[in-house]
């Protein structure tokens, strides 16, 4: 009997456990297995194998019964996920339905989730902009949150490291505010985008319109071909999964790469309940998992644990990992766990028209768009003028396209002819903001005291809201973009504030923030829990502040850097 127990324990013991297989978990898995660690990746959702499990990826538009519109019963059963721009008939299989994993909205919050191998890396928007010191400096300079324990120099080599493997397209723009990376060829501008970029460069010395850096293989390098990935085919239906591996996802890239090392055990349908803390050893020893099929609880053990469950679920797991030593959640001596959650403010938008370049149009499609790096309060906090009214600033997406008009009057032969002979219209232009929100103690997640999810795990209570700083930033974005659009000669300019709920940006961050001081933060500069050093959190939960860049690239770099450190520490017998 004793031997039997030892065998069971050996069979469930690994060198490392990674919780989550999304963009950051995939990277942790790749790095740890490549460095020789027997690694167990726990994924709460089902397995999604590259290509084989992309059921809609080769479907033509007419093959969708409802032409990609959501049936009414799907919408009614799923008011939250139906708000997500990427949730449509061809992608419903990759998003969590509202009833699957309920949560408590103390304030309205649209929690958009993808529970499957690959997580949201299957459906992400693929924008990959680096942070600079103007971002890492934010909290210290402007006196909010806590100082980041790292700076650009710490992360820059890891940005390069992950960019080369993932395949990031872009131009070397030479901007201090948005450092250049290891780029594959950039996507093309269209005439009006190029024109706008030139107009802005001529009128403002501190504002730039650049081509977005995006995780698309515009020209494969040998490292991409070794992954079995090929050049992006510009189908622009990425969120259905890409059979070419044209964009980066865990499924196409890091997970199969880790699998090739023979060190990876991938366990789908494994809902992590909590992390096991051993008080005698003073460290975490493993993970409690509920098998989604059998509902049985199983324990797995490892020397190190990477928590990559996606920002809010990483909070949930730590909050639910209680012990005598940590009654309020693993590593939560400071009481900040679950607090200072922030996100990106996407409320503001603008549209307009341009009547130039009527002899030019575009051909094909582009899975990317131009980008305007933050230009407000970058080099210092303004003390006069409109930007002095708020802290920090916003980045913006921008794009232009040629419209076409179809005369749809009447019916019969003339209508039929008109339909297939659209007339080219003018150019439309549009932009949306991505504003930094300030992490606050009052924006938090916690375990609900009564309600449980279908696995018996406490539901997450989410209490996150905009504040006055966000409102002012929306207004400033609208004013500044109107000024820029007007300066470029755009007409019929219309601004909007869609007052969307937080969460719909799908950029929720924080709650397990990094910091120098264990009294005010959860993680040190290596993403280790201050109070439990063999647990690393390298996803969005670790973010001390949000700045304005799409965050996934930074999570990739964090994960690779932390994995490197963890293995070195294990070799030194420190972990």
């Amino acid at each position: 009997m004793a031997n039997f127990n030892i065998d069971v324990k050996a069979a469930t013991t690994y060198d490392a456990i990674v919780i989550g297989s999304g963009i950051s978990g995939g990277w942790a898995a790749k790095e740890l297995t490549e460095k020789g660690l027997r690694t167990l990746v726990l994924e709460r959702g089902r397995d999604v194998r590259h290509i084989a499990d992309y059921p809609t990826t080769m479907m033509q538009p007419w093959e969708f019964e409802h032409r990609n519109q959501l049936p009414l019963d799907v919408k009614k059963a799923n008011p939250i996920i139906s708000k997500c721009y990427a949730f449509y008939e061809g992608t419903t299989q990759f998003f969590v339905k509202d009833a699957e994993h309920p949560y408590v909205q103390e304030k309205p919050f649209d929690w958009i989730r993808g529970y499957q191998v690959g997580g949201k890396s299957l459906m992400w928007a693929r924008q990959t902009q680096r942070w600079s010191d103007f971002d890492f400096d934010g909290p210290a300079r402007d006196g909010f949150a806590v100082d980041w324990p790292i700076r650009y120099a710490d992360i820059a080599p890891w940005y390069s490291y992950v960019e080369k493997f993932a395949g990031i397209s872009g131009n070397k723009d030479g901007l201090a505010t948005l450092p250049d990376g290891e780029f594959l060829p950039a996507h093309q501008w269209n005439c009006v985008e190029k024109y706008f970029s030139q107009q802005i460069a001529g009128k403002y010395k501190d504002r730039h319109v650049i081509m977005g850096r995006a995780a698309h293989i515009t020209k494969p390098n040998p490292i991409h071909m070794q992954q079995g990935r090929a050049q992006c085919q510009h189908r622009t239906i990425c969120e259905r999964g890409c059979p070419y591996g044209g964009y980066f996802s865990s499924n196409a890239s890091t997970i199969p790469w880790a699998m090739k090392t023979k060190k990876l055990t991938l366990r789908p349908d494994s809902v992590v309940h909590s992390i096991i803390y051993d008080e005698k050893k003073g460290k975490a020893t493993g993970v409690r998992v509920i098998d989604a099929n059998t509902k049985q609880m199983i324990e797995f053990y490892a020397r190190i644990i990477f928590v990559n469950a996606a920002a809010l679920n990483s909070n949930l797991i730590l909050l639910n990992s209680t012990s005598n030593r940590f009654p309020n959640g693993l590593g939560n001596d400071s009481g900040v766990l679950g607090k200072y959650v922030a996100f990106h403010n996407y409320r503001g938008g603008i549209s307009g028209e341009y009547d130039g370049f009527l002899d030019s149009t575009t051909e094909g499609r582009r899975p990317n768009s131009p980008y305007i790096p933050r230009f407000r309060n970058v080099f210092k906090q303004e003390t006069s003028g409109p930007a002095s009214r708020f802290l920090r600033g916003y980045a913006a997406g921008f794009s232009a396209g040629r419209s076409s008009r179809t005369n749809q009057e009447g019916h019969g032969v003339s209508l039929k002819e008109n339909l297939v002979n659209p007339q080219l219209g003018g150019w439309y232009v549009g932009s949306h903001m991505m504003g930094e929100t300030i992490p606050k103690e009052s924006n938090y997640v916690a375990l609900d005291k009564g309600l449980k999810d279908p696995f018996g795990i406490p539901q997450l209570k989410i209490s996150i809201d905009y504040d006055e700083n966000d409102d002012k930033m929306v207004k400033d974005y609208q004013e500044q973009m109107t000024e820029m659009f007007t300066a470029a000669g755009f007409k019929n300019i219309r601004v909007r504030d869609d007052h969307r709920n937080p969460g719909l940006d799908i950029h929720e961050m924080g709650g397990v923030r990094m910091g120098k001081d264990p009294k005010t933060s959860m993680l040190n500069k290596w993403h280790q829990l201050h109070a439990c050093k063999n647990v690393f959190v390298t996803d969005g939960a670790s973010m001390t502040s949000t700045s304005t860049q799409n965050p996934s690239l930074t999570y990739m770099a964090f994960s690779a850097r932390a994995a490197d450190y963890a293995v070195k520490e294990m070799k030194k017998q420190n972990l």
Partner: protein
Amino acid sequence: MERRTALKSLAVAAGGLISLPGWANGWARGSMPANGALLTTAQNELLAEFVEVIIPETKTPGAKSLGIHQFVERMVTDCYEPAAQESFKKGVGIVEEMAQISYGKPFVSCQPTQRNELVTKLSTSADGGQKGFYSLVKGLTIRGYMSSEYVMTNLTHYEFAPARYLGCVPVVSKAVSEKK
């Protein structure tokens, strides 16, 4: 397992024993909607002729032979609120009624010019329900037609994998559908 077998034999038995109540004897082919369908077969046939008026067959197929009426009914059935489904069904009934009043025969038996006249009458009707029915069916017909395999493949030359984005190309004066 046992339960499933039991249900199966019950179904077989019921199939053999089927007998219609007296009030159902008048049921003719197409007078009842098929399982889960919004329209009866006869109403669906009317809809086929209606969408054919909107997009008729010329040297290329029209909406009827492309099956757009099936798409219209499918969309209304699955993607619209019950109230909209009711006005859709009511609209089909009104078209039939108008055909009977104007020409003394079913819509499907009318001459193409007569059908066109009826559809035109609906499109200019002061009655919100009639106009609404026309707009709903026309909108969905256009959508179904433009996203049909025939049109996207042969007329608008949809590229599933364009493998390029060219930002600035000269405008070609030829209409898209002429490129053959």
